[in-house]
């Protein structure tokens, strides 16, 4: 278990800057997830932590020791790769015990530790098999077994669940979380799947184009995204965005949308002033069908997607794509215009130019 510090870390490939001047602290025993779209630099950052990529500028410290010039083996880290990277010519037991063998552990100790890790991951009956004889989920567990058998300071996970089917992914998510609860080892986990990030992390780092957009607990980021990128990236379906101009007078403000229609805003202080050009964000689950007299919006329904427990209503309003997550099975047909009510307690406003969150809204 170790604390990780990244201080003004920069990574350049020739003239291309993959990670510009990034600083981040990861507490001992924390489960930190780096999330962002493809090419945002999250895997590069993880590989720099592992020692598989050099650092152009800045410092990386693990457990208080600067490790910039250390080989991966000197850093006392374990990594689970997206492809699992199991050695195909070795059995499961040999794969798991390989690092211990390199550490010159005794045969008895290797067997004992491999058996203990296999027990945790339910791999005991598979120890004599080769990777080619395993299913995707079993290979994933072997990759994790290879990491935990070492008892390292830090676990690094590089999109370990992306090759699994949806059902197995949910199961493995729970297993990794429970493993962290048991081992209490610091984990840095990379994914582009925001559901994985929301469900597993102690803290999430949202990255975009090599920069950190926001760091916080999953619910902090979900409830108070600091900019439009974070607001749209976290949450599935993603947040609805309605650009417009603030009109009216203080205490009776409205948002005038692109088609000229207006939405009356709640009377409390939202940090907005008439003439401001903003984007209003509303999460799909904060919209309900029917006109209850509050803030409302008419939506032309393109598609309805019943999921069993609830229904997704996908449509358009004021030239904006809108998705509503409605309870139950409302009787709405495609092509109809439906009135939805917006929960005024859960509004987000972002500056139209900078995309930053405005005031204390929400």
């Amino acid at each position, binding site marked *: 278990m170790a604390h990780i510090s990244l201080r003004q870390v920069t990574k350049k490939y020739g003239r291309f800057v993959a990670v510009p001047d990034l600083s981040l602290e990861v507490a001992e025993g924390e489960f930190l997830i780096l999330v962002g779209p493809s090419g945002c630099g999250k895997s590069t950052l993880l590989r720099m932590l592992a020692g598989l990529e050099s650092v152009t500028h800045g410092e990386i410290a693990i457990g208080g020791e600067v490790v910039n010039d250390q080989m991966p083996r000197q850093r006392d880290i374990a990594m689970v*790769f997206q492809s699992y990277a199991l050695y195909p010519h070795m059995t499961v037991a040999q794969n798991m015990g390989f*690092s211990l063998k390199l550490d010159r552990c005794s045969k008895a100790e290797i067997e004992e530790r491999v058996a203990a890790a296999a027990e945790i991951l339910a791999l005991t009956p598979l120890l004599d098999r080769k990777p080619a004889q395993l299913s995707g989920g079993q290979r994933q567990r072997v990759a994790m077994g290879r990491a935990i058998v070492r008892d390292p300071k830090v676990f690094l996970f590089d999109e370990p669940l992306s090759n699994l089917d949806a059902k197995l992914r949910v199961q493995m998510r729970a297993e990794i979380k429970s493993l962290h609860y048991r081992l209490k080892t610091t984990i840095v986990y990379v994914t582009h799947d925001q559901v994985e990030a929301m469900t597993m992390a102690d803290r999430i780092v949202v990255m975009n184009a090599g920069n950190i957009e926001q760091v916080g607990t999953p619910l902090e980021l979900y409830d108070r995204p600091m900019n439009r990128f974070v607001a749209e990236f976290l949450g599935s379906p993603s947040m609805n965005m309605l650009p417009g101009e603030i009109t009216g007078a203080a205490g009776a403000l409205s948002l005038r949308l692109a088609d000229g229609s207006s939405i009356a805003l709640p009377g409390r202080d939202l940090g907005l002033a008439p003439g401001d050009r903003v984007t209003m964000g509303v999460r799909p689950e904060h919209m309900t069908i029917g006109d209850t007299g509050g803030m409302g919006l008419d939506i032309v329904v393109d598609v309805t997607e019943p999921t069993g427990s609830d229904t997704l209503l996908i449509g358009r309003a004021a030239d904006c794509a809108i998705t509503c997550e409605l309870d139950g099975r409302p009787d709405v047909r495609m092509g109809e215009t439906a009135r939805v009510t917006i929960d005024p307690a859960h509004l987000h406003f972002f500056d139209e130019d900078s995309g930053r969150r405005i005031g204390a809204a929400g």
Partner: protein
Amino acid sequence: MTTTTTEHMPRATGRRSGRKGGFARSRNADRLTRAIVIVVTVLALVYILLPVYWMVKSSFQTNADIRALPPHWYPHEFTIQAYLDMTYVIPIWRYILNSIYVAAAAAILSTLIGCSAAYVLARFRFPGMTLCLVAILATQLIPPITRAFPLYSAIQSAGLLNSYTGIIIAYAGFSLPFCVMLLRGYFMNNCPPDLEEAALVDGCSYFSAFWRIILPISLPGLAAVTIFTFLNAWNDFLWASLLLNQGDMKTVQVGIGDFSGEGGNVRYISMFMAACVTATIPALIMFLFVQRWLVSGLTAGSVK
């Protein structure tokens, strides 16, 4: 249902409309195609194997039987006497041992150097890498005979003329460009970099990751280049006759060639043929032994 539709398909709509192409045509056309394929294959096989058959057949005949006119297509007097007597006129076992030593050493040296160079060229980017690759490829464009004098001169200057070391270095050098290019492709297509990175994280150095992880999973590619170099060296006559032509040190190709030049192929024709058959056996055994690896090694780099 499909059969019925086919049977009722109008045939008058033109020849092209009813034709499915390839082997899915009428049963008669299918039979004809198969017959042609079989005949062509058999003819090609006869063309390739006839000299081999003639050599094997002659080795079991007496000299008189071999010289009979019209020639006998099979031994009228079957005998293994030529195999028993050949060692009196040609030290064939000594020559075979020389060849095995030279070919095996060249194959091992070439594979060791080739896989190391190929790994570096497959995994690392460094200034001048493209130039290296082009230079390696360019060596394949130079006709071997043009290298004869410079190489002879170089080996002589190094004091390695008529020594095993000289010819082993020469053979390994000839095979290296092919070995490097084949293994580079093999490493790039069949050995994911994730494996080495996992090994580095597990505690390996770069060399140890290469030695413990990459080499064991590259056995088909390594077998392919080893057998290629071995057979090249085993079959060579030109370089061996230039660089190693002294007494007992001769390779089997040079030994048999010299025996033939001294008139052995006329006076002792059955023994000459028996020596030729014996000389093919070690290479044949090695080829059969690694054939499966060789085929998979040569195809593995082409299609992922």
